[in-house]
């Protein structure tokens, strides 16, 4: 089943006195592999969180689901600090997100099979007994990806999922994302690696408080634009 198309119309966000985003206008096609690029602090994560309904934004965001039925959204948040003090293993965490039955009781067979499959896909099977507090950055990112696979997502929102991954992990994630996308999942991917974006993305939106550019990767991610994005980045870090 193909994922949703997303239409964003005149999206703006003001928090306190700060204009975070303004006048954003773009569409993402159903089943696209779409990347958000742009400088740090330009509002990529914030835009994604607006789409997920977590921000008090103005403007219109419309999801065009297949058959009009709201599907599943998988979300891989930016690498977060996980609870360090709770005795919660990878397995426990996966059970928490997979079922309503309390996670301290044993999971149903079907649930367990889904967890097994998801952990296997991200290469965490051997580490499933480890506590969340003891995981490395890359392991945490793998776990965050694994949870987004249950249930199988129609829309997958990824927020820089690869920052702490080793080479093998990065290849694995790339493969997984392409696999899901080829099955019809709409992928919305916040990505800093412009070479990877150029190689994989169908369409991109360049965001720096406004939409700087939007369109197919080939026409949008030109040398000028890349220099522009990096230029903005350098200016910011200098300031």
């Amino acid at each position: 089943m193909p994922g949703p198309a997303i239409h964003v119309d005149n999206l703006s966000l003001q928090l306190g006195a700060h204009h975070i985003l303004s006048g954003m206008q773009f569409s993402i096609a159903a089943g696209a592999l779409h990347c958000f690029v742009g400088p740090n602090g330009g509002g990529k994560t914030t835009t994604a969180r607006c789409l997920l309904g977590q921000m008090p934004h103005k403007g219109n965001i419309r999801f065009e689901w297949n058959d009009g039925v709201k599907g599943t959204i998988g979300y891989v948040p930016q690498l977060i600090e996980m609870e360090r003090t709770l005795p919660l293993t990878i397995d426990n965490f996966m059970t928490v997100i997979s079922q309503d039955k309390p996670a301290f009781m044993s999971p149903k067979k079907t649930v367990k099979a889904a967890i097994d499959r998801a952990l296997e896909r991200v290469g965490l099977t051997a580490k499933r007994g480890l506590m969340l507090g003891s995981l490395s950055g890359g392991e945490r990112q793998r776990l965050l990806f694994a949870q987004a696979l249950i249930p199988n997502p129609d829309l997958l929102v990824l927020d820089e999922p690869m920052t702490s991954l080793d080479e093998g992990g990065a290849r694995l994630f790339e493969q997984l994302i392409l696999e899901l996308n080829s099955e019809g999942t709409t992928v919305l991917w916040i990505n800093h690696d412009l070479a990877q974006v150029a190689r994989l993305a169908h369409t991109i939106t360049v965001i720096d408080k406004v939409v700087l550019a939007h369109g197919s990767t080939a026409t949008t991610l030109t040398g000028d634009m890349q220099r522009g994005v990096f230029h903005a980045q350098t200016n910011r870090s200098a300031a």
Partner: protein
Amino acid sequence: MTAFYTWLRETLMALSDSGALPSIFYYEFVVNALLCSIVIGPLLGCVGTMIVAKRMAFFSQAIGNAALTGVAIGVLIGESYTAPYVSMFSFCLLFGIVLNYTKPRTRMSADTLIGVFLSISLAVGASLVLYVSARVNTHILESVMFGSILTVSDLDMNVLLVVTIITLVVGLPLYNKMLLGSLNPSLAQVRGVNVQAIEYVFIVLVTLITVACVKIIGAVLVEALLLIPAAAARNLCRTLRSFVYTTMVLATLSCIGGIWIPMQWDIPVPSGGAIVILAAFFFILTTIIRNVVPGFREAKL
């Protein structure tokens, strides 16, 4: 229910008469208190793991203190001073909901805000209770703050039972959602969890439980039994399952022991105090085990 309680008490009395059980089972209030403790232990143990996960220990302390005000109001409006449940439930619920409502609406960290509420509830509660206890019965203050098993009635047991059933029916199906909401609210929201609504549900449950346990453990110490067994279990457990079950066992043992030990050896301490001291003993024990047994070794910093 009363018929069941009577039957149980009579059976235990008969057993105690015949020498099969220790002589303390001959007393009605002991049986009542022990019945309560086998309900309270697992209940507080299970909820305690969530309190620890959500870092809300001081929230429940504030609710416990608010119960003092509830008792005082109850006495002032003419409720029975041994069971002013209407006032306690209404005031504590109001207090908990206002606190939770205020939390996202100030630019303070949670501990600052809870600290403010905690102090208010203790100051108002203690002042009011002292004021009314001078008029009615000076023992109110002691028993409300630290628990008293002498006055546990069938009504108290029914209240506790109803609260336990509500917690099981409402709380268990929401356990995972509550946990995810505290681990990562943003992720929880995407996964269809109404984080704020669930927070209110949890607040209401904690409030109900706190009020229902005030009789046995006392307003000041309810929070301790929510917190200490979970902290003790945390020392030794590495999975959620062992954490929850160990906490339940430790909380239950603390309750039963805290009631039984002072009775058996005639030690004049309030039940709440004894229960919490026993729980603290378990905490110290598990802390020592954690530091001595090589299997628990971990990074110092």
